[in-house]
């Protein structure tokens, strides 16, 4: 029972989602500057849209030329597919966290197994070197165990073209045990919709220094602070 609950927490499935959503509302996390806040019909999730500087910068980069290759690791979402493909780009999408939990499960032994991690990365990020012009990583990096995180970032560096932009997010609470899990939808070139879907336990908590260290191979790391306890980060390959 406890194991199942913990698994759901890690997977981000709604765990007392209505309560979680209300907690978010009461904590003011859902954005004081949010343009709109909506509760779903079932009352299990809330969503709000807000301006995103990181998205604006990412969109500015990919709008320059059509026919780019964009990777989205946050799972396929209609809004994101529409946004990317309407710009004339080819989208490569997959739900990296879902694949991770399906293949490596919640067993610490498998997640720490170098060989298993290498196989997982090979199966899920099997692209030619210097292939992508942009990558939407969202907030998944903070939910990966250390070994997989290192391998993943290293592979992202390899498959990104020089000048490739990575859009990623990290929660700003440095001590929080549980953080709100979001599904991210691109509404326009500078508007992002965040749909809360329960709470998740991050594997690692990052501050600015640790984020810079994580992407030390890359050319630059730019932070954008937001009012909803998220750090938006644009990483330049």
């Amino acid at each position, binding site marked *: 029972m406890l194991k199942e609950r913990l698994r759901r927490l890690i997977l981000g499935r709604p765990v007392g989602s209505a309560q979680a959503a209300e907690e978010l509302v009461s904590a003011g996390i859902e954005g004081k500057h949010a343009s709109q806040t909506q509760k779903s019909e079932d009352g299990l999730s809330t969503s709000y849209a807000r301006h995103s500087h990181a998205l604006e910068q990412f969109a500015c980069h990919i709008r320059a030329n059509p026919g780019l290759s964009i990777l989205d690791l946050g799972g396929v979402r209609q809004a994101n597919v529409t946004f990317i493909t309407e710009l004339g780009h080819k989208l490569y999408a997959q739900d990296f966290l*879902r694949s991770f939990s399906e293949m490596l499960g919640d067993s610490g032994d498998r997640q720490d197994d170098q060989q298993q991690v290498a196989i997982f990365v090979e199966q899920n990020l099997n692209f030619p070197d210097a292939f992508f012009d942009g990558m939407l990583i969202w907030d998944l990096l903070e939910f990966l165990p250390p070994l997989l995180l290192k391998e993943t970032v290293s592979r992202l560096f390899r498959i990104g073209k020089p000048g490739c932009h990575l859009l990623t997010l990290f929660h700003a609470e440095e001590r929080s045990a549980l953080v709100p899990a979001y599904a991210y939808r691109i509404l326009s070139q500078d508007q992002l919709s965040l749909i809360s879907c329960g709470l998740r336990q991050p594997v690692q908590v990052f501050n600015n220094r640790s984020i810079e260290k994580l992407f030390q191979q890359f050319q630059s790391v730019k932070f954008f602070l937001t009012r909803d306890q998220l750090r938006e980060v644009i990483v330049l390959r």
Partner: protein
Amino acid sequence: MWNKRREEDLKPRPVAPPTSAELAKEGIPISTFATKNSETDIPRSNALIGKSVLIKGQIYSREDLTIDGEVDGTIELQEHRLTIGPHGKVQAGIRARDVVIMGTVHGNIEAADKIDIRKEAKLVGDIKTARIVIEDGAYFKGSIDISRPEATKAQVPKPQAAAAPASPAPQQQPLVSRPVEAK
């Protein structure tokens, strides 16, 4: 008391001989289905591969097809719709006009018009289509390439005469080949 009526029912009733009009009516087959007069009302035929069917090989269909079983091979429905039902498991390259996925598909899909991926679907493969609809909760791993009608038109090769030469044109050779006399 209660059986009185049943006894009455059991008694044979005198049957009136059929009239000539009724006899004539009997010869005409009557369908229990609603009749469809206009061409637009005719329901589109739809072939079905049921849950317990497993097919290995090539499927070519000239009508809409629903797969709720297992298929391993290739599927081609030029101008028709393919529906992978909730129990469908397909490991195949797919070509169709429309594709609706509710089950599991491993393979590349090329749809001339639209691909509809429902929330319970699981799709691993590359997609090439003009339009796509994806419900939240669907699992997808692969690439999405939207081929717009303008793009396909642009790809149509122009006649050679209209094409502007990029470099100084060499002397144009006649297209008709002539036999060369051996000296």
